[in-house]
């Protein structure tokens, strides 16, 4: 009976998952110490997972919780990368540059607030166009090619830890945000705008908060990506990969859930890694990932995390009912 009560309480569900994730982060923190000296490839593999995971976190906040269908995540991502690249060139060291990239994204999000006046489907189309408009602007004001200066190139292990810190902050920052007053507003808005405004929720204000925080997180991911990849140029604004893949990850993992983006990004990274290693072609990962998306969309439209949790709930409750029956018999 205890097990039944435990699994039914949704309040506890979040804490269990967050404990698991916290444990995962701790494991990740000691992972390089256990690793044999210079196994750089596995560290780099994790670094790119951190990028995707942070992007997925950002999109889950905007699209999953607040119902903002942002199809232009790349505009934040690329802006973060270019601004941090430019500030490193200007002589700023790595950490402040990454932070500055994030702040640029947050500021840009503030500039986008007027687009909320559009109906949600038009908002989605607007976000799709925005990166295309931003490319020439960035080329004009900031530059075209961005290279990490040799002074700011870090070792694989340092890079790994920077990524881990960014990921940890994005996961638990958003986790705490969602448990706060802001989180209640965002969840309510995501479920029913009319009902939330009738209960006193200022929709424009809280959507803006979601966009600014989400923009900050996505831009930080972009800044970190530049550090990982070494150099980028402004055509990155036209790369839909960074807009769409995070959405797919969130949908696969479970949209609007704490576990969703973490799980989705993990699955994506595993698929990505295995195709690159066993098929030696970069297009296969898209193919395989598309198949995964289709399977998820047809069989478990809510995503893997909610379905898995529902399944474990059913199993544990069946077990405990059996126990109760056998006790009473």
């Amino acid at each position: 009976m205890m097990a039944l009560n435990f699994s039914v309480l949704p309040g506890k569900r979040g804490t269990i998952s967050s404990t698991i994730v916290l444990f995962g982060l701790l494991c990740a923190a000691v992972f390089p110490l256990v690793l044999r000296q210079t196994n750089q490839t596995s560290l780099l593999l994790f670094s790119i997972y951190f990028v995707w995971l942070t992007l997925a976190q950002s999109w889950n906040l905007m699209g999953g919780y607040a119902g903002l269908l942002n199809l232009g995540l790349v505009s934040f991502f690329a802006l973060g990368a270019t601004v941090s690249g430019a500030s490193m060139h200007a002589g700023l060291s790595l950490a402040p540059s990454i932070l500055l990239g994030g702040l640029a994204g947050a500021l840009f999000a503030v500039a986008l607030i007027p687009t909320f006046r559009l109906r949600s489907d038009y908002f989605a189309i607007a976000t799709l166009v925005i990166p295309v408009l931003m490319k020439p602007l960035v080329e004009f004001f900031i530059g075209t090619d961005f290279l990490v200066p040799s002074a700011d190139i870090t070792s694989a292990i340092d890079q790994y830890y920077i990524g881990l810190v960014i990921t940890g902050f994005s996961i638990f920052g958003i986790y705490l945000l969602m448990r706060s007053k802001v989180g209640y507003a965002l969840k309510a808005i995501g479920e029913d705008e009319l009902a939330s405004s009738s209960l006193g929720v200022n929709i424009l204000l809280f959507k803006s908060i979601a966009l600014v925080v989400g923009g900050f997180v996505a831009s930080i991911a972009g800044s970190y990506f530049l550090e990982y990849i070494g150099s980028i140029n402004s055509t990155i604004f036209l790369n839909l990969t960074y807009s769409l893949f995070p959405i797919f990850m969130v949908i696969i993992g479970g949209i609007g859930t704490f576990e969703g983006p973490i799980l989705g990004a993990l699955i994506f990274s595993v698929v990505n890694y295995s195709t690159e290693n066993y098929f030696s072609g970069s297009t296969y990962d898209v193919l395989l990932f598309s198949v995964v998306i289709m399977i998820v969309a047809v069989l478990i439209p809510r995503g893997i995390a909610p379905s898995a949790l529902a399944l474990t709930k059913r199993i544990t409750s069946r077990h405990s009912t059996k126990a109760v029956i056998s006790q009473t018999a």
Partner: protein
Amino acid sequence: MAGLLSLDGVTKSFGGVTAVKGLSLSVDEGEIVGIIGPNGAGKTTVFNLIAGIYKPNAGRIIFQGTLINGKNPFQICKLGIARTFQTVRPFPKMTAIDNVIVGALFGRARISSPSSSREYCEKILQVVGLYQKRDRLARELTLAEQRKLELARALATRPQLLMLDELMAGLTSAEISEELEIIRMLRAEHKITVMLIEHVMRAVMQICERVIVLDHGVRIAEGTPAQIASDPLVIKAYMGERIKTGNKPEETTSADQESEASES
């Protein structure tokens, strides 16, 4: 008794259809006022105008001495007007208590954090009789429970004026009695003024001190439940003209269909 809410010549039209025509009414503090009328009479439109979902084309809506037409729904809620919806709109993927917490955090109650509002919200769930179901997701509740949840959520905003849009529809006789008891208690203990739209006449007759009858966006009668029940205009609005023998009752049904279409 001071006037809490007054509408002065309020008009709202959608394209060519005028849903509310020059409506004036006032509600005093502590009253329980019923709004009745046939389908498409404009009752829900009146609620939507007061709640700020629609902006009136003409007229003034005054709540506690301040003009509120043109304000957003969330501002109006913070001023102390809460409402429930005719078709329930719970947050389906949130638990019952979380639904109520949203009201407590952002309404007139303005409680600062989710954890400090918990106790307050549990009390409200006890009042409406949903305490046992507090950790269930809203979508798992029955329709009657979802209506109670709507009421709880509205109460959590700590309103001065509560607008209930067909709260009793689809409830059993015992459930209706429960709801009536809750409304009486709210007025007695929390000084909440109540406006209710209702088709369940038993409820209206039992609880309202004053009833306003709308038909085609116009007020056709106003008075005590007993006065309303015997008003020939009201009977005409509901039943249509007395049918002469031999005539088919087509006129009434087609008029009804028209008015239903205009409501949606």
